[in-house]
């Protein structure tokens, strides 16, 4: 385990509390406006659904300069005027600490997990602190599968606006699904339920100081759960609405951290994904219902301008990263975009090849990792612009069908990935691997979900 000790005050608090069955973790940075409501929802969820369990709500803060920590410590459930039929046997504790180390969500989670392990928690739920649509039911849906059904990892499943979560829809979901063979729809959703077994596994790892410390944490947690054979399910949480304040302003850094983590884990779990074909559904808990969503404005022209700039100036990096055919396809699209073509379209196969080529280039160190993934930003924006244009008139179900088609394209291109992963030796390697590899570890468990 990488050696980062708990802050003194956190250790003291753990010694006082001694044990807690449930830990709810809320990472934060300047979320004073919304975090109070999230804490109230957590308290209400614990009181309503888990009155027989001892519990702690932990806020792990990144040095907020607004009143975030005060909002956590002063949030009162009584303000909500709830009628609870059960009286909780234990009062839920609440703690708020600043975390140490690399600033980011991952470091915040690390403190929460360390405390949870020390308190010997049976189940842990983590939720973002900028949520506006969170309800007490979310905690039931995230914790119950762990506490009562033996699951190790509960991923969220939400209704989101068709333009929301574009890194998820265009890269992370299709790629994770094609690699590991499981349809976890929101692999970087931000809200998760976790078992002690999985928490301990996370804490054993020594890559907490990488991009995992920042936005890479969500896909890191999901991938480890999928690749190492932990029991995984999803819970339907309704709609996901955030606070207007969004940390996504630096898209390039976020893309680098998320995609960098995906590519890094691809190398580590090469033996796991190499032989997996197709994908299987993952069990989904919760009653599904339709919800209204906030409208979202996107500026397609600005995205296409970024793509044209990329084509003009990043050719040197793209030529090193992409296979010649893929590069030629992108350059042709760049010319179209520069000429102001009305119906700009980056098709599924070309996009999937771009992502897979970048993964292979990352593995082969064709271009320094940071430069490589940062140079993906204009291509990603081109894909988003294309997606927005194609889905402008579509209803959510049709959009979901479109995302499904993209996922299938990624799955169909798995042989392409294998062929380019190691260069010319890949074919020999493929045969060697299939000789020595047994069936995927999760296959038996997952087949129950089919």
């Amino acid at each position, binding site marked *: 385990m990488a050696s980062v000790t708990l802050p003194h005050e956190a250790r003291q608090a753990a010694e006082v509390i001694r044990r807690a069955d449930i830990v709810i973790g809320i990472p934060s940075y300047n979320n004073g406006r919304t975090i109070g409501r999230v804490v109230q929802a957590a308290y209400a969820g614990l009181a309503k659904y888990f009155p027989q369990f001892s519990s702690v709500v932990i806020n792990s803060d990144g040095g907020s300069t607004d009143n975030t920590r005060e909002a956590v410590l002063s949030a009162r459930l009584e303000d909500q005027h709830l009628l609870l039929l059960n009286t909780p046997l234990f009062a839920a504790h609440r703690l708020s600490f600043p975390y140490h180390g690399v600033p980011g969500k991952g470091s915040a989670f690390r403190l929460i997990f360390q405390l949870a392990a020390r308190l010997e928690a049976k189940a842990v739920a983590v939720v973002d602190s900028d949520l506006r649509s969170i309800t007490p039911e979310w905690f039931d849906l995230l914790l119950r599968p762990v506490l009562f059904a033996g699951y190790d990892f509960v991923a969220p499943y939400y209704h989101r606006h068709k*333009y*929301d*979560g*574009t*890194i*998820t829809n265009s890269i992370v979901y299709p790629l994770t699904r094609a690699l590991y063979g499981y349809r976890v729809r929101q692999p*970087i959703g*931000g809200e998760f339920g976790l078992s002690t077994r999985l928490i301990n596994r996370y804490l054993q790892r020594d890559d907490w100081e990488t991009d995992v410390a920042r*936005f890479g944490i*969500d896909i890191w947690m999901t991938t480890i759960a999928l690749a190492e054979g932990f029991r995984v399910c999803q819970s339907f949480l309704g709609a996901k609405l*955030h606070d*207007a*304040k*969004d940390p*996504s*302003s630096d*898209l*390039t850094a*976020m*893309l680098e951290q*998320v995609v960098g983590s995906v590519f890094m884990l691809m190398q580590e779990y090469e033996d796991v994904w190499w032989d997996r074909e197709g994908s299987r559904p993952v069990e989904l808990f919760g009653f599904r219902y339709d919800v209204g969503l*906030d409208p*979202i*404005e*996107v*500026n397609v022209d600005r995205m296409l*301008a*970024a793509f044209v*700039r*990329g084509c*003009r*100036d*990043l050719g*040197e*990096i793209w030529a*090193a990263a992409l296979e010649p055919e893929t590069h030629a396809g992108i350059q042709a699209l760049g010319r179209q975009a520069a000429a102001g073509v009305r119906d700009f379209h980056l098709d599924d196969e070309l996009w999937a090849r771009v992502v897979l080529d970048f993964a292979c280039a990352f593995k*082969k*160190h*064709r*271009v*320094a990792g*940071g*430069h490589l993934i*940062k*140079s993906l*930003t*204009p291509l990603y924006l081109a894909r988003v612009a294309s997606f927005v244009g194609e889905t402008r008139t579509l209803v959510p179900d049709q959009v979901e069908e479109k995302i499904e088609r993209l996922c299938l394209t990624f799955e169909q291109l798995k042989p392409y990935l294998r062929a380019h992963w190691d260069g010319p030796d890949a074919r020999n390697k493929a045969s060697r691997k299939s000789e020595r590899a047994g069936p995927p570890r999760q296959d038996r468990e997952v087949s129950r979900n089919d």
Partner: protein
Amino acid sequence: MINTLREILEAAVDRLHHQVTTYLPSTLAAVILLLVSYVLAAAARWFLYRVFKGMTIDKFLRQSGVAFLLDRSGRLRATRLVAETVYWAILIGGFLIAVSAFDTDLTNQMVQGFVFLLPKLFVAGLILLGGAWLSQYLGRSLLVWAVNENLPSPRRLAAGLRIIIMFVAVVVAADQLSFARNVFLAAFIILVGGAVLAISLAVGIAGSQSLRRLIEEKREQRESEGERSLWTHL
């Protein structure tokens, strides 16, 4: 007259005889040494290509980006690097031994000078390689950043940075070799000073408006992003 002519011819023949008897064995020895060194070099290269794997060096070359720096296809492997280095080292060593076979002041000075220069050449080569790597790395960093930040002329900015870094590397390498030290230093100072002055004048006189507009645009862009920030990529 005939006697004089005969004396001259005899003297010429004597000199030729003397030079042939003096230098022919050395020349033959040098040719043999060159051939032997070539055969040895070729044999060593052949052997290393078959035996040496050097996977750790391969990994270093790939991860540091040196493989793609030296060979655009990135196919440079440690085996090739080591085999070719050994080949040329043996060949150059053989050449020096062959030259020293003449055992004259001139050849001894040549060999001595080369041997003394060799460590400096090696260090200068490393400096140039390091400079090339750094210029490529920082040039790309600037290029990608400038493109993503929508700055004007990203390629020119990156090329400028690369030229400056490579120029510094050349100046340091020339200094290491004691080669035209003052010329390079003066050129460097003139170039950097001139570039700074030119940029200052350009920004001060003509570019201030553009710069203000650029900053203004960036600010507006950030503000509009704030307004539409319900859109999250994750």
